[in-house]
């Protein structure tokens, strides 16, 4: 049976597994949004090869594909030595740690634990259901939060200025839909107001929907890990948040293809000026223009704080700590640990993160204190830093209840939006279905 499963993996992953056999270290990494990101990782890999005299094979996959390949390879018993994807911390890490599938990274992290921020480090200190003990089953290396961007030139073309953009939640979104979009269309431009994805094939909507939930004060899992979506007050807030999220889609203010967008489609749509506003995790959108169109990067795209919640308070920043994983069945665990020790040295990870243009926020205070982040005149990076430092930071519900990872795996929130915008269900009915499934998944 094991042999057949291995064969299945070979059939599905011919190219990569041939590399597995040849290299001392196999890395499956999610492709960056610009070549510098990939080159930065390759630089650290080359340094590791030089220092150890061993060989490494790096394969880059698009977001989602990395997850799918790793999930399949795990099933086949042939995972890579080391891997990174945006969705691991939210959809898989807690479950894989609990199921005993991840390698213990304590000997990598404990010696340097004082170099990390407390929250990101805790996100990797997970329970193993087999041993009933906690240990570091992931290596935190960057953190991210969703951002809001808009085209300043399109706003001005519509006849408005930056001062006209409302600061409150619903007026903010209504402004783009009810004023900017009609004004642009009257000038003959087929442009949508808000690029808001809701598909089940991308993780971005999961981030954005949770940000909306937080703005409305809808905490579906409390810090004790209890599911409270059925609490009347929470339910009311959930419904209000989903109504708000679905409004641009239902009012044809969002591109119709957004319900089927893949991970990078929101970037592509916005960069092609098919919509004026977009919400997107990391600074990947502006950074993709930094080198080739510096003027556009600095003067035409804006990164702004999220509008205040309906209660008038600043919307909390939802922080997701991105992790690198090594599996119990990875063939070269020692090599993976040796690589991670090298990667996490400030003199390596610091320049590597700078090479990405500051797309991510570091998880080490020493790196955050770098003038690159604190004294920057870069409008987008400065906005990112403000988001991390000037508003309340809250984690995703997985931090309180590891079973919530299954909610992301099943993309329940996007499915609920689908019920509303595709099947025409009322939000109440969609939330009922969502609640029932969530209770099953979280066992409450």
């Amino acid at each position, binding site marked *: 049976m094991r042999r057949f499963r291995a064969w299945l993996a070979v059939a599905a992953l011919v190219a990569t597994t041939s590399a597995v056999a040849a290299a001392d270290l196999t890395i499956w990494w999610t492709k960056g949004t610009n070549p510098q990101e990939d080159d930065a990782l390759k630089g650290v890999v080359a340094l590791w090869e030089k220092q150890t005299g061993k060989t490494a094979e790096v394969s880059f996959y698009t977001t989602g594909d990395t997850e799918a390949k790793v999930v399949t390879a795990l099933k086949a018993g042939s995972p890579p030595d080391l891997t990174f994807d945006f969705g691991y911390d939210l959809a898989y890490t807690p479950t894989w740690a609990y199921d005993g599938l991840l390698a213990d990274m304590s000997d990598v992290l404990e010696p340097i634990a004082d170099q990390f921020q407390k929250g990101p480090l805790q996100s990797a200190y997970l329970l193993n259901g087999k041993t009933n003990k906690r240990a570091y089953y992931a290596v935190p290396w960057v953190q991210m939060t969703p951002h809001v961007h808009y085209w300043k030139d399109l706003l001005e073309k519509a006849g408005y200025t930056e001062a006209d953009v409302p600061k409150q939640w619903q007026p903010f979104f209504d402004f783009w839909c009810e004023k900017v979009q009609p004004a642009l269309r009257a000038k003959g431009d087929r442009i949508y107001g808000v690029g808001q994805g809701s598909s089940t094939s991308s993780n971005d909507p999961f981030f954005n929907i949770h940000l909306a939930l937080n703005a409305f004060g809808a905490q579906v899992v409390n810090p004790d890990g209890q599911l409270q979506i059925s609490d009347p007050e929470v339910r009311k807030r959930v419904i209000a948040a989903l109504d708000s999220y679905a409004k641009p889609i239902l009012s044809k203010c969002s591109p119709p293809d957004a319900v089927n967008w893949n991970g990078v489609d929101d970037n592509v749509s916005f960069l092609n000026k*098919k919509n004026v506003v977009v919400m997107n995790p990391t600074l990947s959108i502006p950074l993709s223009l930094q080198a080739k169109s510096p003027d556009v990067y600095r003067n035409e795209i804006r990164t702004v704080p999220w509008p205040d919640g309906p209660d008038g308070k600043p919307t909390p920043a939802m922080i997701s700590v991105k992790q690198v994983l090594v599996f119990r069945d990875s063939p070269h665990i020692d090599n993976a640990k040796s690589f991670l020790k090298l990667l996490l040295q400030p003199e390596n990870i610091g320049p590597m993160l700078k090479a990405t243009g500051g797309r991510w926020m570091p998880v080490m205070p020493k790196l955050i204190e770098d003038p690159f982040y604190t004294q920057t005149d870069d409008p987008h990076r400065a906005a990112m830093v403000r988001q991390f430092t000037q508003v309340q930071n809250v984690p995703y519900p997985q931090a309180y209840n590891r079973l919530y990872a299954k909610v992301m795996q099943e993309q329940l929130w996007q499915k609920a939006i689908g019920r509303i915008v595709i099947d025409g269900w009322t939000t109440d009915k969609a939330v009922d279905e969502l609640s029932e499934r969530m209770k099953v998944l979280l066992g409450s």
Partner: protein
Amino acid sequence: MTLSGAALLQANSSRKWLGSGRPLLSFKEKWALFFLMPFATMFVAFVSYPILYALFLATDRSAYTRVIADPIYARTLWNTFLFIVIGVMLKMLLALGLSSFFVLPGRAIRIIAALFILPWAVPHIPSILSIRWMLNSEWGMINNLLFQMFGIDGPAWLTNPSFGMASIITVHIWKYLPFWTMILVAARLGIPKELYESARIDGAGSMQQFRYVTFPAIANVFLTSTMLTTIWSLGDFNSIYLLTGGGPMERTNTLATMGIRYAFRHADFQAGIVTLMSALPILVPLVIVLTRRLRRNADA
């Protein structure tokens, strides 16, 4: 001298049982077996074993519960039904009608036929992806033209589930219609011309010639083709995956794409196999009928 089947059987059996001293297999038979071995090995490794393993996976009862409890499954069954019934029926009726045109003589017809077969001849991936871009509701050619000409956004061709399924069926027909049309053209060209001359002498019009001469002559080919295309359509992954990816929000999956989604997106091979097994109630009778029909044709 040639031996009858019975005599050959008797000769072989006496060689085996009477201890004639001759080897069990002749030199030629050993060579035949030697040349057969690679094929047999490949068959066992890549056909028999995977099928048996798939059947083994399908014995996981919990997989049936998982698949049936998935709200997408009922929708997927309905989509598969639409895809097969409308897709196959329309395609074969159109192929039958178009074959009347392509049997006509003339250079122009041959040129049109060469152009007509292009969608089938070009590789699947670029041709279907180009249609995907054309139908993209944000920046696709069709909706951009509609906006420029009439100031309207145009339908969400691929992201409205109904339009999405209609687009999938249309593309499937566009892609495979030429092949089946040419099969029927070939069958029609095999009908003796004398039959039409006799029919015309008897006063038969075009429709009567079709009803009493053409269709009876190609009925076997038509039915066999219909069954074959039904079987192939059940496994058509490309048309759906490349066009909509099963979206929006899994609303345009058929059994083929949903099975792959389970197996490779969620690494739930059991659920993937169970989903694909759902097609067996249609597939098995079709294969049986097809095999019997082919055997009957061979005997005739």
